[in-house]
């Protein structure tokens, strides 16, 4: 840049400022003496009882919340069972027979029944 070169040639980059003697030599030590101790902060940090049990309490509360939600939205399993019992009491003997028949057929009987049915088809 033309203007930049003009400034450089006229004024240059000479530093017109000065510092007290030994300023930079002493600065580091002077500053380091003013820095707060960080290691002490690490050492004195104690974990309180509350901080220790906090995650467990949160986890328990979360678990209880989930359980409560399940009970509210899905319903009480015990009440479902009692409703089923009422229904079963109202069933007739014929319904019982129809309902219990398949459970009496074991695998062998079922296989025999199917074989007989095939022979009948032929």
């Amino acid at each position, binding site marked *: 840049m033309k*203007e930049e070169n003009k*400034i450089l040639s006229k*004024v240059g980059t000479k530093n017109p*400022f000065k*510092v007290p003697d030994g300023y*930079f030599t002493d600065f580091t030590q002077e500053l*380091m003496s003013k820095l707060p101790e960080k290691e002490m902060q690490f050492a004195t940090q104690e974990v309180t009882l509350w901080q220790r049990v906090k995650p467990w309490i949160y986890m328990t509360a979360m678990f209880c919340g989930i359980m409560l939600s399940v009970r509210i939205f899905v319903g009480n399993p015990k009440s479902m069972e009692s409703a089923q019992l009422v229904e079963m009491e109202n069933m007739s003997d014929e319904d019982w027979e129809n309902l219990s028949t398949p459970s009496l057929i074991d695998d062998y009987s079922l296989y025999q029944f199917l074989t007989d049915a095939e022979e009948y088809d032929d």
Partner: protein
Amino acid sequence: MKNYNEKEIIALLQEPEHQRKAFECIVNEYSEQLYWQIRRMVLSHDDANDILQNTFIKAWLNIEYFRGDAQMSTWLYRIALNECLTFLNKQRTSNQLSIDDSDAEMVTKLEGDPYFDGDEIQKTFLKAIQSLPEKQRMVFNLKYFKEMKYEDISQILGTSIGALKASYHHAVKKIEAFFKEEDLNL
């Protein structure tokens, strides 16, 4: 640790037992270059010294936030220049002065400053620089005196390279115009 190795120093900063020693190396490495940038902004040695100390104390207190993604110099320059801006704003507010009055006053103070030995042309040059807006002054100082790359200035000031080039160009034009006004043709 005579030879400054940034990677080693940053690794040592992560270890609490070596943190202080590592930080001392950082202070040793960067104090002088930061000082001159601060001094060019605030002009007075005492103010520059205070700001430099504040810069390193802030860096020390927040060293855990330095993750090594940026260069240490970039991080320190950013803190230092922010400290300068805070200082200049405070000074202006406490003296109830406008930006121009405050800067003019700072240059006038140089007359009796024992730590200034510039000639008339350098004094005019400083006045011209002080007439620039603060951020433009920072760009000019970093580019002209430190010959810093625009990429690095961009990281320090968080400004795009294009905007920085434009800012520097305007700064140079203004300084040239200032010299003309003072009947000192470049």
